[in-house]
C-alpha cells in the first residue's frame, strides 16, 4: 500500500519534471527530499534538468536586463504593453526586458514589497499625482530629470503634465496615458424620444424624466466596487462648489460637514436616487455587469470613463456617444476627471541606465503614437500626430481641453484611507439618503483623524 502511494507521488514528480524541462530554477532542496522519498531514477532525472537550466542561464547573461512590472492587466492595454516591449527590444537588441503583469488591484498591494525589495523591478507603472508623490517623498523613486532634459520632454509635454511629475524642481515621473470621464448614452434611445445631449442640470433632469416616463431607467450604475459612486461625488461637487473647493476637500483642507458638501447630497444627488432614476440594486453589480442594462436598452446613460467602450459589445458600440457632465452653476469653473497613468524608475534599481533608456522609449513619440492609435487613449506628448484621431478621441480631447481644471479621481486625489471611508459613506448614503447628516459628521471625524496623522 505504502509503496503504491510513493510510486504515485514519484510519478507526479517525474511528470512535473518532464513538464518543466524547459523552465528555470531547480533547487538543491528538492533533490535532498527526493532521495528520501523516491527511487534513484528520479534523482538522475533531476540532475539532468539542472544541467539544462544552467546552460540556459548562461545564455541569458550576455544580454543586459531591465525588469519591468506593469499593472496594465486589462486585455487591450496589456496587449499594447507587450507590443511596446517588443518594439523596444528590437531597437535595443543588447537589452532584454523581463516583463511581468500583475492584476491592477494586486499591484497596489505588491508595490510596497517591490519598492523595499533588495532587487526591485526597475521600471513600474503607477498613478500620477498624489499617489506617486507619496513614494517620492519617501525617497523610493529615482530622479529622472536627466531623461526629461535629454529627451526634450520639457518642451514636448504640456505644463500640466510637467507639474504632475515634478517635486522641488526635479522630475520623478513619466505620465504617458490618460482618459476622460463623461456621461455615455445610447444614441438610438435618445433619437427615439427626440432627446438632445443635455448641457445644463435642468436639461439633464428633463431627459431623465422623459426616459423614466417611457419605462427606461435613465441611469445605470454598478456600485459593488464603490469607486463608481465617487465619480458622481467628484462631478457633483466640482459642478456645485467648483474645482478649487473640491481639491481642497481632497487634500483635507476643507471639512466634510461644511454646508456646501451637504448641498451636493441633499439638493442634487438625493433627488436622483429618490426619483428612481438609477437602476435597482446597483450594489449587486460591478460596473461592467451594470453595463448590461445599457446594452439591453433598459437603461440609457452611464457616468463612466472612456474604457466603457472597450467593454461594450463590438457590434453595438456605434450606438454609444457621450456628453460633458451637465453644468449646474455656470459661474463655477469647469472641472473634469482625467486620471493619468505613467511610469517611474525605482530608487533601488539595479540597472538604472537601461531602465532610463526603456523609460525614454515609453515617453517617446513613437510609443505614444502607438498607444493612441491602438487603444484610442490620449497621448501626453504633444508631438504625437492627432490628425488621424477618431471623432470620439477628438471629442474627448476637446472635452478635457475645454476644462478649467483637471482632477485625477477621488481615490487618487485624496489619501487611500480617506477614499476608503468616503466611498463607504457614499454607499451608505445611497442606501439611506436620510442618514446623510450622520454620515458626513462621521466622515469629518475620519478626516480630522486621518489628516492629523499625516502631519
Amino acid at each position, binding site marked *: 500500500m505504502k509503496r503504491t*502511494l510513493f510510486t504515485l507521488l514519484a510519478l*507526479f514528480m517525474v511528470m512535473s519534471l518532464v513538464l518543466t524541462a524547459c*523552465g528555470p530554477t531547480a533547487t538543491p532542496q528538492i533533490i535532498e527530499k527526493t532521495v528520501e522519498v523516491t527511487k534513484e531514477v528520479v534523482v538522475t532525472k533531476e540532475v539532468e534538468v539542472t544541467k539544462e537550466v544552467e546552460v540556459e542561464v548562461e545564455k541569458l547573461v550576455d544580454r543586459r536586463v531591465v525588469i519591468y512590472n506593469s499593472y496594465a492587466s486589462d486585455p487591450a492595454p496589456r496587449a499594447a504593453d507587450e507590443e511596446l516591449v517588443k518594439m523596444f527590444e528590437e531597437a535595443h537588441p543588447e537589452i532584454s526586458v523581463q516583463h511581468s503583469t500583475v492584476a491592477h488591484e494586486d499591484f497596489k498591494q505588491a508595490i510596497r514589497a517591490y519598492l523595499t525589495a533588495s532587487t526591485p523591478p526597475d521600471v513600474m507603472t503607477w498613478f500620477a499625482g498624489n499617489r506617486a508623490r507619496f513614494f517620492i517623498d519617501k525617497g523610493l523613486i529615482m530622479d529622472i530629470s536627466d531623461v526629461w532634459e535629454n529627451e526634450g520632454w520639457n518642451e514636448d509635454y504640456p505644463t500640466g503634465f510637467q507639474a504632475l511629475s515634478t517635486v522641488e524642481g526635479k522630475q520623478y515621473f513619466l505620465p504617458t496615458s490618460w482618459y476622460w470621464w463623461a456621461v455615455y448614452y445610447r444614441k438610438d434611445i435618445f433619437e427615439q424620444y427626440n432627446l438632445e445631449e443635455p448641457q445644463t442640470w435642468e436639461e439633464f433632469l428633463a431627459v431623465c424624466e422623459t426616459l423614466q416616463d417611457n419605462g427606461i431607467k435613465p441611469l445605470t450604475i454598478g456600485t459593488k466596487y464603490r469607486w463608481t459612486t465617487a465619480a458622481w461625488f467628484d462631478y457633483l461637487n466640482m459642478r456645485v462648489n467648483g474645482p478649487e473647493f473640491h481639491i481642497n476637500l481632497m487634500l483635507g483642507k476643507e471639512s466634510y460637514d461644511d454646508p456646501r458638501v451637504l448641498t451636493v447630497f441633499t439638493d442634487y444627488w438625493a433627488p436622483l436616487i429618490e426619483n428612481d432614476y438609477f437602476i435597482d440594486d446597483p450594489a449587486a453589480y460591478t460596473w*461592467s455587469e451594470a453595463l*448590461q442594462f445599457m446594452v*439591453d436598452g433598459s437603461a440609457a446613460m452611464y457616468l463612466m470613463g472612456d474604457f466603457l467602450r472597450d467593454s461594450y459589445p463590438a457590434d*453595438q458600440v456605434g450606438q454609444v456617444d457621450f456628453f460633458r457632465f451637465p453644468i449646474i452653476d455656470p459661474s463655477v469653473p469647469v472641472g473634469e476627471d482625467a486620471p493619468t497613468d505613467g511610469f517611474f524608475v525605482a530608487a533601488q534599481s539595479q540597472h538604472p541606465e537601461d531602465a532610463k533608456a526603456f523609460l525614454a522609449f515609453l515617453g517617446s513619440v513613437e510609443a505614444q503614437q502607438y498607444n493612441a492609435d491602438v487603444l484610442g487613449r490620449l497621448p501626453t506628448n504633444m508631438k504625437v500626430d492627432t490628425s488621424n484621431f477618431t471623432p470620439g478621441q477628438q471629442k474627448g480631447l476637446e472635452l478635457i481641453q475645454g476644462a478649467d481644471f483637471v482632477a485625477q479621481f477621488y481615490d487618487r486625489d485624496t489619501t487611500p484611507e480617506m477614499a476608503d471611508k468616503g466611498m463607504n459613506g457614499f454607499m451608505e448614503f445611497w442606501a439611506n439618503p436620510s442618514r446623510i447628516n450622520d454620515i458626513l459628521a462621521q466622515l469629518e471625524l475620519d478626516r480630522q483623524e486621518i489628516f492629523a496623522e499625516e502631519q
Partner: protein
Amino acid sequence: MSTSKFFSSPWRTLGFFLLLLITLIWLLPFFTALLTSVRTNDDILTQGFIAIPKEWTLRNFVTAWTRGGLHQYLPNSFIITIPALLGTLLLSSLSAYALARFRFPGNRLLFFLYVGGTMLPFQVLLLPVFRLTDALGLYDTHLGIILFHTAFQLGFCTFLLRNYMRTVPGEILEAARIDGCGEFRIWGQIMMPLTLPALAALATLEFTWIFNDYLWAIVLLRTDALKPVTAGLATLQGQYVTDWTVIVSGALIATVPTVLLFIFLQRYFIEGLTLGASK
C-alpha cells in the same frame, strides 16, 4: 455489492436518486462555469450571465493556454506544490510522531505553538514574511516560496497527524520496541503505514491549498516566468475590463490536476473498510 443487487431495494434506490439530485444541485455552479467557458464576453453582455449561448466556442481554452500563459504557469505550479507537499508531509509526520508518542518537557507548549501558528489570519504575515525572504536572498525564487509553504502548512498537518497518531493502539509500538526496533524504524515502518489514510487525506487537502494559493505567490515572486497558475490567471483581471470567459476557462483547466489527484488518492482514505479488516 453489485449494481443490480444495490438497486434491488426500493429504499436504497430512492436514497441513491436523492443523493444524485443533491449532487447535481451542488455542481450547478460548476456547470455554470463550464457554460461560461464556451461563451464570449459579448454574448454574456447581450444575453445575461446564465443563458444558453448563441455561439459556442472553445477559443477561450486556447486563449487561456497561450495568451493567458497557462503553458508556462502550470509547470511552475507543480514545481512549487510537489516539493512543498512532500516536505510538509514528511516533516509534520516527524513532529507529529514526537508529539503524539513521547512525554517530554514542552510537549504541550510545542503543540500549542503548532496550532497557534495557524490561528493568525495569514494575510497579516505577508509583509513580514516578504522581508524575511528578501533578507535570506530567496525573494523571487521558487525555493523561497517552497520553503515558506512547507513551513506554513506544518502547523495544520502536525495538528491533524498528531491526533491521528494518538488513535494508533500503543501495544503495536511497544511490541516493536521490545523487538529492538529503533524509533525511526517504528516511525517509518509501523506508524507511517498506519497513518496512510490521514496522510492521503492531508495530501489531497494540502495539494489543493498550495496549488490554489495566489496571495503568497504575488508577494514572494516578482517575475511572471516563475508564477504559479492561480497568480498567473489573476493577472488577467484588469482595472476596468476583465476577460472573464478566459479566466473561467483557465480556472477549469487548473482544476484538472487537483481533481485527478483526489480521484487517485481517495482509495487510500475511502476503501478503509477492507483495510481495517486486514489490520
